[in-house]
């Protein structure tokens, strides 16, 4: 039987709608929007304070600063949002009741993911969007496009880490262990991966890993996010280290967007497999 035949949109909508409304009502979306907006505005106006100037210094330094900070903040928020999506239901005791209804585990998982992704998207768009309106309102259209590209890639980055969090939630038996895994994922992808990659490159003199380097970068969604943003129309790539050597031929937004989508689908697929066992 085709598993997609088992997926009913009514059930997915009901679960997603509840998750989304929960985050709106408990002001999670509002709080995260404010964090993103404040963070974007502060970066814009005070990002160059160390160099003795304040205010909007141009779209490229702004994107560079936002990318660096978003890589730390957004994955963490997405992981915190999603780590108890399934294990929380199990631990609270609501999972058996839900599954006694005419809903499959796949529908529950997809509904949960979509509801949380919707909340995260709203917060990201509202936060960075409102800040963007204030920042680049008088900027040329090209800057608008570049900023919009950054926001879209940030949304994708959030979805990827949310997918990883939901997967951790499906694999863990308790919220405590799921939160531990979520933090470990953040450490690995945001802090450790590039360091290990750089170390391995230096140790091997680039001979072994060099050809594999673009592939190895794509194994980290945080790096894909960086690459998506640095290969814009300006000289942004000069502001980054490791990823700046990514071959420009592969740095196509559509291709990288597809890689990001694969990064969303793969953990969700794993989660579905584990959750169905």
């Amino acid at each position, binding site marked *: 039987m085709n598993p997609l035949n088992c997926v009913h949109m009514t059930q997915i909508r009901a679960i997603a709608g509840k998750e989304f409304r929960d985050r709106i009502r408990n002001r999670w979306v509002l709080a995260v929007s404010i964090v993103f907006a404040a963070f974007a505005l502060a970066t814009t106006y005070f990002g160059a304070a160390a160099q003795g100037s304040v205010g909007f210094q141009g779209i490229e330094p702004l994107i560079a600063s936002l990318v660096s900070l978003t890589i730390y903040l957004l994955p963490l928020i997405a992981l915190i949002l999603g780590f108890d999506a399934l294990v929380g239901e199990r631990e609270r005791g609501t999972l*058996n009741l*839900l599954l*006694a209804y005419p809903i499959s585990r796949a529908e529950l998982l997809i509904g949960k993911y979509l509801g949380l992704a919707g909340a995260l998207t709203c917060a990201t768009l509202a936060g960075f969007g409102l800040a963007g309106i204030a920042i680049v309102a008088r900027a040329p259209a090209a800057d608008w496009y570049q900023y919009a590209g950054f926001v879209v890639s940030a949304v994708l980055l959030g979805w990827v880490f949310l997918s990883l969090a939901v997967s951790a939630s499906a694999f863990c038996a308790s919220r405590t262990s799921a939160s531990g895994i979520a933090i470990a994922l953040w450490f690995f992808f945001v802090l450790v991966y590039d360091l290990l990659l750089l170390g391995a490159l230096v140790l091997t003199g680039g001979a072994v890993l060099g050809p594999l380097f673009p592939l190895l970068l794509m194994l980290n969604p945080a790096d894909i996010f960086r690459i998506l943003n640095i290969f814009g129309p300006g000289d942004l790539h000069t502001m980054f280290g490791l990823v700046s050597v990514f071959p420009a031929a592969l740095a196509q937004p559509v291709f990288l967007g597809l890689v990001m989508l694969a990064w969303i689908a793969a953990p969700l697929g794993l989660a579905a497999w584990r959750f169905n066992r």
Partner: protein
Amino acid sequence: MIELKGVAKSFGSLRAVDGIDLNVHRGELFGLIGRNGAGKSTLFQLMLGLIAADAGQVSINGERAGGPRFRAVKRRLGYLPENVVLYDNLTGIETLRFFARLKGVDTAECAPLLEQVGLTHAAARKVREYSKGMKQRLGFAQALLGDPPLLFLDEPTNGLDPEGIREFYRTLRARQEDGTTIVITSHILAEIQQRVDRLAILHSGRIRAMGSVQTLRAQTDLPLWFEVVAHSSDTDPIASALRRAPFDKVTTNDRRVAFQCPRNAKMAAIAALAPLTDRIADLQIQEPSLEDVFLGWMGASA
């Protein structure tokens, strides 16, 4: 309606359900009783298709539990879990609407259901503000969504006050009269002994006994309790007539004489009391309670 054939389920080395055969018929109120850990909840989970059996077969209306066509069965069943947990951040009415959407039931049903369980006044209050009894009533209401012809109720009267318990069983009786099949567990055996059509006593994942309360009483062969009320406090002649086999445990208290009598010696007891009728004001014969029956079976299986 519900059919289990040789069903077994283990969790690691623990054999939670061990070769159970069971049939629950349409319109029947069927009780499952047993000590904690006897396998009642696992059996519920198996019947609801929440977990898969290691061996044997569970089916409802001919559909294998958890099978590809079981979704249609789930639309027509209601489930109240033990210690029901609902979403604290939703109001009572929102809770019912959420579950109604999941079941594909018209959300217009929700308000009348809340009224039926006596929660109309709390419809707009968050579940976190509900007492345990109110949560239980709300849980019962969600089980009734869509007027299901099959109900699984796990310790449904937990936390209910006496009035709530009476109301609950009144609703249940009305549902049963409409043809609803009900499977129920309860630790309060006195509560269900007058209400179930049949019951199964579970022990260590196995059915130790199954049948109507009357059948199980007969099978355990537990003694009857007689209580004789004398006209005066001079109960010695009555007590003396009973202090012989097969009567047992003769006790006196003011005008009352109580004694135990084997089920098959009921007529002998009446015959022993017949010459003393001028001294006797009243006579009561008490059947063993379901609790006695349960403990009798547990004693036999210990």
